[in-house]
């Protein structure tokens, strides 16, 4: 019977280093993914935009909501525009998460406007019997931002100085 050779100490060290590198890469990937999934874009001092892309499950929804509420408290944000044009599927569960976000922000004195509702999405929402209550919704982001500006007493005005 041949003796099994134990791995040398340097081989064990190399293996350990490789494992740690894999763990670091995994953590970096998680951090990058978290930043991607929790985007908060400041449009003005009082308006925040949150473009949602991909799937919206309840864990992600909680994280987004926590982020938004913390932002309202720390920065005094008055209007949040949540754009869902990039959300894969808007079913009753996603709609429920969005409505809760609207309620939570309202409790903190802010207004939520949900944009990116396409005609097909709107048809699905009504056919599913989903109640959106008094949550403000729009088709386009442009419309949502115009409403957001009005909420804070601002308006975009053409100056006639456009570059040609």
């Amino acid at each position, binding site marked *: 019977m041949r003796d099994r050779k134990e791995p040398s100490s340097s081989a064990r060290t190399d293996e350990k280093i490789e494992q740690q590198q894999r763990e670091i890469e995994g953590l970096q990937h998680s951090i990058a993914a978290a930043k991607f999934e929790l985007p908060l874009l400041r449009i003005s001092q009082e308006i925040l935009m949150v473009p949602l892309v991909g799937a919206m499950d309840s864990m992600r929804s*909680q994280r987004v*909501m*926590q982020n938004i*509420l*913390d932002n*309202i*408290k720390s920065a*005094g944000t008055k209007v949040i525009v949540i754009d869902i044009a990039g959300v894969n599927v808007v079913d009753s569960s996603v709609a429920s998460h969005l409505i*809760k976000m609207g*309620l*939570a*922000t*309202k*409790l*903190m*004195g*802010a207004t939520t406007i949900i944009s990116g509702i396409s005609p097909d999405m709107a048809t699905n929402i009504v056919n599913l019997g989903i109640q959106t*209550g008094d949550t403000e919704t729009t088709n386009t982001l442009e419309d949502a931002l115009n409403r957001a500006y009005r909420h804070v007493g601002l308006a975009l005005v053409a100056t006639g100085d456009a570059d040609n």
Partner: protein
Amino acid sequence: MLTTNIERIGSNTVIDLDEKDLLSNDLIRSLSHELSKISNRSAVINLEQISALSSREWGEVVALVNALRLIGIRAVLCGINPSVAMTLIELVDSPRVESYLNVDGALDALEAE
């Protein structure tokens, strides 16, 4: 004995509720009596010092708002913390109260009416 901090700011009254206040069995009656002695017709109930709220305690807060309305005082809330907001939306269907970020925001809104 009422230990809640009550402050008159112009034509408004600011009530700073804390977690001890919510343990009182007589909060609504005591505060209603106290505010009825003041001529102010609007009040801000500040919940900034409250870090957690059960559904019973939330019910007390809403009942207080309603009791004050019955005696002719418009009461609004302010200072709800993010963790409290996230809990409340799970506990109650649709919290229908006027609520503002902080005391200044609430006072501005009341003054603007």
